[in-house]
């Protein structure tokens, strides 16, 4: 346990100091950390496996989210892992119930006592409760029956049965659950790692010959997307806004050129001037909110407005780990991060005006250097995720597939 704790602390520190950047890298690190948390987690025997795991993950998750609340991918991944645990728990429970049912059926012949009658009723209750806890559409029957709330009922109540076989069974269930959860988390890691390819596969559906594409910020997803189209022998040119003051666009341009794409770097201010000659704007998102709004690199709202004005499709590429189940409120400010003024201004020149310490009231000069920009859903034409293309108003539905409602508030 201490080694896990130290790993968590280390990761928290990294997040705090913004050592890890980019939602994909963050997401991968988070998943890996959570995996080791889960695998190292030792459950006391008396407790419920699933809920104990969920609590553990939640505790770590809360730490991580607090470390960098703006990095929404952390929260997303934590929720995804919680969702996996719940799912696995549910499937195990249903399997157990089915097994018990089988057992019940086989037992039916041997001893006819009260238990035989009790089990089927109980199993129905278990299924119903489990179903409710995991955002499954409840069936009409379960709605009508009004069964007990807790999904943990069967395990505790089933202790009334043959105790030896039950404890053995229980430990095997525990091991099974953990194993399954880790399997699920591994799958998630694969998914996060492979989302580029998944998205890039759709490139040829969207990019045609001689197209002019504008992008901004540096996104690996966009890079792979464009290169995939290039590999399919589509020839097109790319305008890259340089993205001052971080100049991520230069990095992207460098990579694009290395892969043989016709690339033109423009200043951010020329976005409006050039947009009339652009066929499509493709950007990589930092996060996609539940309402279909996008948080992207700074300057993206400007590009989206210009694209809207010129009726240019504004396409957002986002891996599923970027889908955030939260509805934003004032995201320009609340989900943003202000970076150092030194990126914009030379401290040497303006040091007298920027002096906060001298106590002569508020400083004359403030420097605003936000990292992100929010694009409202009305400006987005299309989301391309690893599961296909979606319109902004559909995103909330997509999110319901990935997260359980219990975890939305962590």
């Amino acid at each position: 346990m201490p080694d896990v704790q130290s790993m968590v602390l280390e990761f928290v520190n990294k997040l705090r100091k913004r050592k890890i950047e980019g939602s994909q890298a963050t997401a991968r690190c988070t998943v890996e950390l959570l995996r080791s948390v889960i695998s190292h987690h030792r459950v006391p025997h008396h407790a419920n496996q699933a809920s104990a795991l969920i609590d553990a993950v939640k505790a770590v998750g809360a730490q991580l989210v607090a470390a960098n609340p703006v990095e929404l991918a952390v929260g997303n991944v934590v929720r995804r892992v919680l969702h996996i645990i719940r799912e696995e728990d549910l499937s195990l429970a249903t399997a157990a119930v089915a097994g018990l049912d089988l057992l019940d059926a086989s037992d039916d012949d041997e001893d006819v006592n009260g238990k035989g009658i009790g089990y089927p009723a109980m199993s129905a209750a278990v299924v119903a409760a489990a179903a409710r806890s995991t955002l499954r559409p409840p069936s009409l029957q379960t709605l009508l029956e009004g069964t007990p709330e807790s999904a943990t009922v069967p395990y505790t109540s089933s202790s009334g049965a043959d105790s030896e076989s039950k404890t053995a069974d229980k430990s095997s269930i525990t091991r099974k659950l953990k194993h399954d959860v880790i399997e699920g988390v591994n799958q998630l890691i694969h998914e996060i790692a492979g989302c580029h390819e998944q998205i890039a596969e759709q490139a040829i559906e969207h990019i045609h010959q001689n197209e002019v594409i504008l992008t901004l910020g540096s996104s690996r997803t966009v890079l792979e997307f464009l290169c995939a189209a290039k590999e399919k022998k589509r020839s097109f040119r790319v305008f890259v806004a340089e993205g001052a003051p971080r100049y991520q666009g230069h990095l992207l341009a460098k990579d694009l050129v290395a892969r043989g794409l016709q690339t033109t770097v423009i200043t951010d201010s020329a976005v409006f001037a050039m947009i009339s000659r652009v066929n499509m704007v493709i950007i990589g998102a930092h996060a996609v909110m539940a309402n279909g709004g996008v948080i992207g690199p700074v300057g993206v709202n400007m590009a989206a407005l210009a694209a809207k004005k010129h009726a240019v499709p504004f396409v957002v590429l986002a891996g599923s780990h970027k889908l955030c189940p939260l509805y934003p409120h004032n995201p320009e400010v609340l989900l943003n991060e202000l970076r150092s003024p030194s990126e914009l201004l030379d401290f040497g020149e303006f040091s007298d005006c920027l002096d906060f310490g001298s106590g002569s009231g508020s400083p004359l000069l403030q420097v605003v250097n936000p990292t992100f920009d929010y694009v409202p859903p009305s400006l987005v034409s299309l989301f391309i995720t690893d599961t296909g293309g979606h319109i902004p108003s559909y995103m909330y539905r997509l999110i319901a597939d990935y997260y359980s409602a219990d975890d939305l508030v962590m």
Partner: protein
Amino acid sequence: MDARRGPLAVPKVRRVGFFTSIEPSPDSPRPNRSLSGPAEAITTSSSPLSDSPSGQFISPVQIPPLRHRSDNLAAASRAAAPVPVPVPGPSAFRRQLASDRALHVGSYNPVDSLLGTSPPSSNGEVSEDSGSLFGFQRSDSAKLSASFPNGGFDMTMRVRAPQESEAKVVIASTSDGRKKNVEPSGTSEPVAATKPRKEKEQKSLKEKTSKAERRAIQEAQRAAKAAAKGEGSKRAGESSRAKPSKTAKQTQPKKDVPQVTSSLSEKRTVSVEKERRMDVPQAQMQYDDKSRVDKAKRRSVVEQTESKNKVELFLHLPQYERGNQLPNLSSNIFTLDTIHHAVYKVGLQHLAGDLSGDNSRCIAMLHAFQEAINDYTTPPMKDLTMDLTGKINGYVSFLIECRPLSMSMGNAIRFLKNQIRKLPVDLSEPEAKASLCSEIGRFIDEKIILADKVIVQHAVTKIRDGEVLLTYGFSCVVEMILLYAHEIGRKFRVVVVDSRPNLEGQKLLRRLVARGLDCTYTHINAVSYIMGEVTRVFLGASSIFSNGTLYSKVGTACVAMVANAFSVPVIVCCEAYKFHERVLLDSICSNELGDPDAIANVPLRTNTKHAKTMDNNKNLQFLNLMYDSTPAEYISMIVTDYGMIPPTSIPVIVREYRREDLLL
């Protein structure tokens, strides 16, 4: 003819839009409408003047037209008399008017102070824009006035005022009579082709001979010009645009002087109309037109090597390698005699990027021209008008080689050429030079410096306490507005938005902070972050086209768009001399490309290496656009020296005042 002149009879005091001056002239905008109705303008011929300041204390209905008529008559009767040199008007008369004027324009304090320094002739009888008037007097007022009938009459009146004091009593001959009187004398018009047929019929025999003479002289001059072309290179530098006007000038022989100066004909108007048409700047040079580029290259002074890695979308714009011409040129400075050293200096400053800002570029250029004109001597056997225009053309094309001209510079050059063209031919060389120089000085004073002050006065009324103003880049007029508003004690905060690669906003920021203004600084990318707290956006302009499109430093459109999305009013501050009658839809067709290396060089430690290694990759280009065009729909208001107007009024201003500007 009269019916046609009706709409031309533009009163000089045209106040457009909302006025902030305290002046009690609520009726002043109204008479303008009579412009659209020529009949009204003729029948109640008072209307053109009724809204002039003098109309307030002279009975607006009666007296001014009387003056006109008498004046016209007098002018006509004196048609043959050469009155080339402007005579100062009777001081009493003028002073009276001057006082009137002061009363009228009293609200523009800085303006007044500036006017106070100007010669007494700026009495502003017809307009608040009085600076323009004394300009006329120096040059050939009669000629100029002809193309602008109403203003012209006033002008001639003033010029000849001493002789006319008694003539004022004479009332009302019809303007037809005047026309007849005038016409014969007007036949010395240089551009014969522009004359309407019926006017030709009226020509006397005398003119015909003069026409023959003219032809002979023209022939001779052509030969001289050809010779000049053979030996000199600077002449060849003339842009083809200037040629028509030049030929027009050629035909102006010295013999015709008396007639020309005294003539007051409509034909002049016609010819000016035509000149104007010719004067509308030709479509910009398209640099993907091989033959023309080659032609231009042969006569260029600056050796430009085309950049290897051009942006395909902008092949029609010049894309040169940077930084290699400067040492070459600066070493040439003493050997090159075709370009005046002052102009040369300005050119080099442009090339090196030391000059930025439309106004300062324009002023620097005009000062250089002033100096060049001062040092100019007409070569023997040559006509000053013609030769000087040629020289100026050479200078201009040199400047274009150094850096494409801004729209405002183009307008200023047009103004200067018009001045040269309209020089009275009998003016001696020093006189002509002095006149031109003072004209240029007046242009700078009035159209730029004074206009800025008027704009500041207007714009400052739009700043209230507690506001957050956003401005983009560096615009000197916006800076003046902010500083002035701060000076008069308004409490507000300024958001300075900047953009790479020039980072002009830092210059503005430095100046504002030094004066104690509360500032916020950010890059253009963050404009939608900051826009939420902004209450007004002030923008500068490089030019405004007649479809209302704002042509300004690249990024202005982005700022205006975001402001529009956040429902923040966008106020553009622009001097009227920057207005242009061209139309523009996008930022691609007409633009200027800056140094691509400025973008490639990124102040990031990690990137510096890649920029160098990537330099030669054919696939990677850097595009450094200098301007962009903002659609009119994003602009809430334009503050100009004529008042505060919506962008839809730009074509009106351009149309109505350009006529005047031609005269200036």
